[in-house]
């Protein structure tokens, strides 16, 4: 008997229930269901008026509502509400049957509660662990950027990377998270983590036109919830990534106070606002529902939300700061400041690649979403394709492959695949990565020779240009195999097929391409424009740049009192 019930929880519910029901004392199930419905009707208004309860202990997150099969079909049959729908009668019948069966098999329903909780637990583990991988990218960025500069600025680079994590985290804790995800439950509830129902208010906008989230400030109240904080951990390390990106373009000349201001601005305002539009259920993501633009703006893991925001913020800051002293000769010809530690550069790049295995596959927020294997392989393929084309491009163009450019090529491939990694095939990933590898080389040369924006580590080309390109790639290469119902579009059918997902230009969805073009370009305008406006003003009030003497000496000792590579102290006494 018990065994039967366990099997029945294994999602062969209807037949098993009808088999076991005859063994139980016969109860008139229609009466039960009527009572239940009546009870629900009396309860519904009060429930709707109440705020959803937070769950800091995590003991109320994950029940039978989250018990679903591989196809996403729920164990619980929802009650149909629209009486005019053509399939109302059939759905109502299914619902009534479910209610009756649930009343007759309470143990199966309890088991489904456990299954649902376990599912949420699995997804928590996945999301947190991949978040830790992304956190480790901090070490990669620190090594990469430090290796790429002159050794007189080693301590400066290490301090920037370190302080970025610290101060950006605090700003995100205070306001950033609430701005970005304060309304996520309205349009983009992370159901894999329990849905975070408490984050349900837009500060600006409403419905499909939300512009700014408004709950969860200081992670108190509605933010003090197990599901929400799982999301917080994962999202804060993403924000940190945008935070480090700017280091690569503004280092070797920015004062420490100005840098801290930049970090607070990125973490508290710049990043969360665009993040809200795309990931927080904001208006860009809902363009599919509101303006019939395919699935709305889609950025899976943040080519634009994280990388283009960071890259173009970095560009605005680099323009305001101006090039490093001596970067351009009197004739305007660029001079090189060669990397001082290639071992750091390569090690840092590999740590970033490793961290990206959390960045992209983790963005499912669900280990039960088996697309993660495709995402992981796609991510790696784009990385190696980008590194290969950058290496070969430099080999042909300058006679020798430049190792720093090869590393930039790998990162370019990673940045470009980040938006589309879940929606494209491995073949498309190689193509996207390969194009990004060339794009980053051309971008670095363009910055250095044409517009003369001094970018010591190539952050603008890697994260800015390739981030924009990556977001567009969703609208070109997405093949429709994944993302059915994305942003609430096409839950039953899309392009005439049930289960059809996000689709790009070459697979027949022009609107998706247009939407990506609009969204990615808006991202560039927002990140560059907002940063330029704010920090142009700051720079007018007080120069954000160190004095020429400090810059020539190296920032280590004047700013932090210690050189990166101090000589051993020689003392007269033994």
């Amino acid at each position, binding site marked *: 008997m018990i065994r039967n019930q366990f099997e029945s929880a294994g999602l062969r519910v209807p037949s098993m229930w009808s088999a076991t029901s005859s063994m139980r004392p016969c109860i008139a199930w229609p009466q039960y269901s009527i009572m239940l419905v009546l009870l629900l009707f009396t309860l519904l208004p009060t429930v709707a008026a109440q705020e959803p309860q937070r769950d800091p202990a995590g003991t109320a997150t994950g029940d039978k509502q989250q018990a679903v099969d591989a196809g996403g079909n729920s164990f619980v049959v929802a009650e149909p509400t629209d009486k005019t729908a053509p399939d109302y009668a059939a759905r109502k019948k299914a619902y009534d049957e479910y209610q009756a069966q649930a009343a007759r098999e309470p143990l199966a329903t309890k088991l489904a509660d456990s299954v649902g909780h376990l599912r949420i637990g699995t997804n928590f583990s996945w999301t947190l662990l991949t978040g830790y991988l992304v956190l480790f990218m901090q070490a990669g960025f620190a090594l990469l950027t430090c290796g790429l500069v002159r050794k007189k600025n080693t301590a400066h680079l290490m301090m920037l990377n370190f302080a970025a994590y610290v101060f950006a985290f605090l700003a995100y804790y205070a306001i950033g998270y609430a701005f970005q995800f304060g309304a996520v439950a309205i349009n983009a509830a992370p159901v894999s983590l329990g849905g975070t129902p408490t984050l349900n208010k837009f500060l600006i906008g409403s419905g499909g036109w939300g512009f700014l989230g408004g709950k969860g400030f200081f992670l108190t109240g509605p933010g003090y919830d197990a599901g929400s904080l799982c999301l917080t951990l994962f999202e804060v390390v993403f924000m940190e990534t945008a935070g480090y990106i700017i280091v690569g373009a503004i280092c070797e000349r920015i004062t420490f106070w100005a840098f801290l201001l930049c970090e607070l601005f990125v973490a508290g305002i710049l990043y969360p606002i665009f993040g809200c539009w795309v990931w927080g259920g904001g208006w860009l993501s809902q363009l599919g529902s509101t303006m019939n633009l395919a699935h709305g703006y889609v950025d899976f893991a943040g080519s634009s939300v994280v990388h283009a925001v960071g890259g173009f913020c970095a560009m605005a800051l680099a323009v305001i700061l101006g090039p490093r002293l001596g970067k351009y000769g009197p004739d305007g*010809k*660029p*001079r*090189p400041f*060669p*990397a001082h530690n290639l071992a750091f550069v390569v090690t840092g790049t590999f740590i970033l690649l490793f961290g990206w295995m959390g960045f992209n596959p983790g963005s499912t927020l669900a280990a039960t979403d088996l697309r993660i294997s495709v995402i992981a392989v796609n991510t790696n393929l784009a990385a190696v394709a980008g590194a290969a084309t950058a290496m070969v491009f430099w080999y042909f163009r*300058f006679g*020798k492959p*430049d190792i*720093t*450019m090869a590393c930039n090529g790998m990162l370019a491939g990673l940045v470009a695949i980040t938006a589309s990694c879940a929606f494209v095939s491995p073949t498309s990933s190689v193509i996207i990565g390969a194009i990004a590898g060339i794009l980053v080389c051309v971008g*670095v*040369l363009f910055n*250095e*020779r044409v517009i003369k924006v001094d970018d010591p580590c*190539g952050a603008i080309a890697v994260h800015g240009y390739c981030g924009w390109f990556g977001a567009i790639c969703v609208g070109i290469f997405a093949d429709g195999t994944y993302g059915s119902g994305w942003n609430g579009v096409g839950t039953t059918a899309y392009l005439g097929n049930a289960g059809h997902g996000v689709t790009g230009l070459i697979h027949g969805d022009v609107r998706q391409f247009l939407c990506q073009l609009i969204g990615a370009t808006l991202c560039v305008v927002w990140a560059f424009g907002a940063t330029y406006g704010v920090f142009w003003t700051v720079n007018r009030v007080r120069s954000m740049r160190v004095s020429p003497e400090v810059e020539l000496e190296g920032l280590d000792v004047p700013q932090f009192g210690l050189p990166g590579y101090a000589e051993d102290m020689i003392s007269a006494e033994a």
Partner: protein
Amino acid sequence: MKKIEAIIRPHLLDAVRAALQEVDVRGMTISEVQGYGRQRGHTETYRGAEYQIEFVPKIKIEVIIPDDIEDFVVNAILRSAHTGKFGDGKIFVIPIEDVIRIRTEERGEAAI
């Protein structure tokens, strides 16, 4: 007494040291230096910007010797530091007034 200063290719240091030992030179001082002569530097590119490597890494050897073995020492260096290509380096011969050993205060050739 003479001081022999020689600028040589770094990878030939061991060969030169062995050759000097054969002609009974008992001590030497070396330093890592950078410089250029007729060889000049060479052009490289870093992230798309061309630059000249003006100064090439070299090793400078300094040995102090009695006058009578000057020819042997110079010949030993010539033999061991020679490749025949640009950048083999130079030898300078400089007269020395006095040599003093700090430990014993000996002077002259006895202090070498």
